């Protein structure tokens, strides 16, 4: 029975964990401006994330060591500095956007300007991390994250034309605004394939003391869980395509996105959207700040675990405490959450090579994975993923200039 419990938990975690401010904002903007057409990018992002999480999960289950730990130990500190700095900077920006998302949700509900909510949100998040252990943080936010299913309900109520959606799952070129199309594609990929997701996932596998028996749970969690999560992001895109696009509404401010569910589902839709934005962004806030603390602690060899009392891992708990408050400052000072989100999503896409390419070496290292090394299909997928990440790195900056903002 324990295996089924973990299976359900696994799926719940990735459903709840997938949607966050980045995927909601980029899917809404994509649907509003290009209808169904960008659905294939979400599919590509979801499958890539599922693959990367399966691999980092397998790495952690077999070797009992996290991805960040192996990155430092196998390649040396001189190399490790690059992913460390890149992922840290990018995750800090995404963390700010997530806190912005929660603040906007509270502003829409209360009418009090989002700036006032930033510090209280950070303090609440800090309190949960300080007192709660790993499973409370992971399962609590994921269970609540299921409210994101309201996007699927919203999309269904609007009766999407399935054949068009089916065709949109295949890559297609835009008819107008090429730079904007590819900019949103990069932002959507950045929103779905975020390094903190698989760093957190591999640390979670160690926190949950996974062993080789968990490889099947790992495959299902990384696979099915993420496909479910990606499905919700596609639902958000479809809802925007059916509500915003026909009316020529482009998403310039977060507030506009609430109309997505208020249109098909009335007042309940409006309330469900605010709950979804609040819960998914708050869950992501906890996940990102923990992932950053894990990255530092595992990289420098400090003691770390969300299951230990803070006194036992002082530098680890100081890190997440300082980071969550630091990330709340720009929002408290009035930084625009939507442009912050867009820039952080594109930067995330640009930072992918430093965490994807090293997997090529680690996942084929018999010392670490013994018989569980990558088969040729996984290696092929990883090489394609590595090339895609290099294309994103090169394309991100010009697209930010041409199609951004």
């Amino acid at each position, binding site marked *: 029975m324990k295996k089924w419990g973990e299976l359900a938990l696994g799926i719940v975690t990735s459903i709840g964990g997938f949607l966050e401010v980045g995927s909601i904002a980029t899917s809404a903007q994509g649907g509003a401006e290009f209808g169904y057409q960008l659905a294939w990018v979400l599919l590509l992002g979801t499958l890539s994330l599922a693959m990367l999480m399966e691999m980092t999960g397998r790495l952690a289950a077999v070797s009992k060591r996290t991805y960040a730990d192996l990155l430092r130990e*196998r390649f*040396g500190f*001189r*190399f490790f500095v690059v992913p460390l700095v890149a992922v840290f900077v990018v995750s800090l920006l995404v963390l700010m956007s997530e806190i912005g998302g929660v603040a906007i949700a509270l502003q829409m509900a209360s009418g009090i300007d989002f700036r006032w909510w930033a510090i209280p949100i950070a303090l609440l998040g800090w309190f949960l991390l300080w007192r709660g252990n790993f499973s409370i943080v992971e399962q609590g936010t994921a269970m609540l994250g299921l409210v994101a299913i309201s996007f699927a309900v919203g999309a269904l109520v609007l009766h999407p034309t399935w054949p068009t959606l089916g065709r949109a799952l295949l890559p297609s070129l835009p008819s107008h605004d090429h730079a904007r199309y590819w900019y949103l594609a990069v932002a959507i990929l950045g929103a779905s394939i975020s390094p903190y997701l698989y760093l957190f996932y591999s640390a979670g596998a160690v926190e949950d003391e996974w062993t080789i028996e968990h490889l099947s749970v790992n495959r299902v969690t990384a696979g099915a869980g993420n496909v479910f999560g990606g499905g919700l992001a596609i639902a958000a895109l479809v809802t925007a395509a059916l509500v915003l696009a026909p009316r020529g509404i482009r998403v310039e401010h977060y507030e506009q996105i609430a109309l997505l569910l208020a249109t098909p589902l009335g007042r309940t839709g409006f309330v469900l959207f605010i709950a979804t934005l609040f819960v998914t962004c708050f869950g992501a806030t906890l996940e990102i700040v923990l992932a950053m603390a894990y990255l530092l602690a595992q990289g420098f060899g400090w003691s770390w675990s969300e299951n230990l009392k803070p006194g036992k891992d002082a530098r680890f708990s100081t890190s997440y405490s300082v980071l969550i408050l630091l990330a709340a400052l720009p929002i408290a000072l009035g930084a625009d959450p939507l442009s912050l989100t867009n820039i952080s999503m594109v930067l995330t896409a640009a930072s992918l090579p430093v965490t994807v390419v*090293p997997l*090529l*070496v680690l996942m084929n290292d018999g010392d670490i994975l013994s018989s569980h090394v990558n088969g040729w299909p996984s290696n092929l997928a990883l090489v394609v993923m590595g090339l895609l990440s290099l294309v994103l790195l090169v394309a991100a900056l010009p697209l930010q200039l041409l199609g951004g903002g």
Partner: protein
Amino acid sequence: MSGRTVALSDLLGRVVRDADGRKIGRIEELNAEISLEQGRSDYVVTGFSVGHFEPFDVIATGNFVQQLVRRFVRATGYSRYEIPWDWMDLSDPEHPRALRRADELPRFG
């Protein structure tokens, strides 16, 4: 008489030249074993692995690139010399020299 001290990371990646001054590759690994002497059990370096990447040598300074290339590019120009410690002159740690010509050194790959 305690001798000079050198940091391992200062040796890794250093270009090694053979007795004739020809570049034979970069230090990739140092192998060590326990030696029991005067009642002390110390680890001492028994040999140096010096890797050579014909086409990639320029970029193969970082260990990451070496591991990436070595793992996937068996065919092209990767070869490794295993140099015993007493054939390696470390008087100047920044310019390690092998005390034999390249063709006399045990070679793999």
